[in-house]
């Protein structure tokens, strides 16, 4: 056997599981999903081709339009809240705290604990009669605290709050990594030139951190569109759909209502939105990031 052939056979054997896996579990399903989105198909029933009907219905139904609004509100609260908080924490921790390992661990801990498990604790915190939050609020003299998870106004912000709480440590670690690549002499130079801490933050830290910031921003946006477990365990999308966001709606349509074609169309819209957001992100990234 020639050397070339031996290399080729080794490569084939080494890559086969990855190629087969990517094909079977990623690429074929995404193609199939596209086909499904043009059918009306309730599982255990025959599928009928309906053209663009699923898509048309999605954009006309008040329920799915409400879900889009919820998703946008959720993403906005989540992305802004978690990225800003993570940035503040990362900058503070980066300024030479001796006990920073403890703080890093404290903020990162929620990210690794089992989502469903820790959401149960939050459910109790938020619960109307037994909840510790309302106990504290009433102790502080608030007479009629909201029912939080059972209140249509507060359910979605509550889900966003728990999501921020869970993920902020992850973004903080990513930003800390970015901060550590900034040359400390730049801060010394800025200090010599008479820049205060606020000026140093805006003129040195932020411009040099844009690369990491955009990376974190992309991840946060993607994660915000995929939120599922916290919604599932905290509010189950309720009350009356008030906290249902897109990914959760896809799940409900597919695995609760068994309306597979409709769910496939929804998931495709989700893909397109995600793709557009990524493109926008890349556009701004190219304009603003200092390489």
């Amino acid at each position, binding site marked *: 056997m020639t050397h070339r052939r031996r290399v080729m056979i080794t490569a084939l054997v080494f890559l086969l599981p990855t*190629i087969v896996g990517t094909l079977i*579990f990623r690429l074929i399903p995404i193609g199939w999903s596209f086909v499904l989105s043009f059918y009306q198909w309730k599982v255990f029933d025959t599928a009928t081709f309906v053209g663009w009907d699923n898509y048309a219905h999605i954009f006309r139904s008040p329920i799915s339009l409400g879900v889009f609004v919820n998703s946008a509100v959720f993403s906005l609260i989540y992305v802004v809240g978690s990225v800003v908080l993570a940035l503040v*924490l990362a900058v503070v921790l980066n300024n030479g705290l001796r006990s920073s390992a403890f703080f890093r661990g404290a903020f990162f801990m*929620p990210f690794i604990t*089992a989502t469903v*498990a820790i959401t149960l604790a939050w459910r109790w915190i938020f619960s109307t009669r037994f*909840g510790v939050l309302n106990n504290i609020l009433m102790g502080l003299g608030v007479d009629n605290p909201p029912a939080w998870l059972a209140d249509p106004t507060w359910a979605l912000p509550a889900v966003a709050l728990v999501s921020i709480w869970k993920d902020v440590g992850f973004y903080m670690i990513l930003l800390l990594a970015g901060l550590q690549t900034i040359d400390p002499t730049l801060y010394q130079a800025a200090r010599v030139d008479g820049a205060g801490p606020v000026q140093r933050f805006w003129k040195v830290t932020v411009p040099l951190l844009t690369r990491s910031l955009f990376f974190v921003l992309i991840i946060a946006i993607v994660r915000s569109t995929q939120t599922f477990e916290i919604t599932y365990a905290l509010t189950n999308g309720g009350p009356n759909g008030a906290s249902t966001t897109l990914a959760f709606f896809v799940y409900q349509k*597919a695995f609760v209502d068994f309306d597979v074609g409709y769910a496939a169309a929804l998931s495709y819209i989700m893909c397109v939105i995600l793709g557009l957001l990524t493109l926008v992100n890349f556009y701004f990234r190219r304009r603003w990031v200092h390489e």
Partner: protein
Amino acid sequence: MNRAYYWLVFALSIPAFLWLVPTLWMVSLSFQPNEVLARTTSTTLFGLIPIPFTAENYAALFSFGQTPWWFLNSVIVSLGMTLGVLAVSTTAGYALARLDFPGKTAITIVCLIGLMVPEQAVFIPLYTMFADLGWHNSYHALILPRMAVPIGVFLMMQFFRAIPKDIEEAARLDGVGWLKIFWHVMLPLARPAMMTLAILTFLYAWNDYLWPLVSAQQREYFTITLGLASIQSNFAQSEGLGRVMASGVIASLPVVILFLIFQRYVVQAMTVGGSKG
């Protein structure tokens, strides 16, 4: 300087406490009797200190109910996935980084596209595919689809690229075959990257919820997070609160311990991702 330092620590302690307190509550409530919790949860310090103390919630979980079995399922699935991802990613990563063969670019692109496909979009077809094959409610249904994680391939590829070429060239001149080079030279060198990948995969597998939820409908194949959610809906919020919290602690404990032991590797992995972005 010194005073500013203590102010900073103090200022950070407040959010750090808020970040830790839900977990502390979960632990503390799990050690309190359900009868007491059903009456009031404003026990000692809003329930933060477990008085009266009991371990009966844990005893109950492990005596009846399928918690030990679900726990074992989670261990099997998470370990199976971790080993699978390691095997698939190291071999593919090595081939893409070090072997020259036609079609290499095409394969890299295919993997990249696979990387960008969001999970929610492949869920429904995967579900129907596995249903047609009659594969649901099995360990391979829980493990196999989660093994196609192109991110692992990229992580290993980057790592192998960074290893100097002379090391394997020396071995090749001695007439050592590819497999032996891979096994005896490259893998030992890649141990740190493999550790990182293994821990991240294990964490992901243990906490994973959506796929087990749709794939495992029989209670024997529930993972611990699934089982946990199923008990939670059986207990009214106030009645079995202690037991629900105990199951939460049990579900979280392995990953928390793993994180505390291997914190260095986890943080390192995040750092690699962050600077490569």
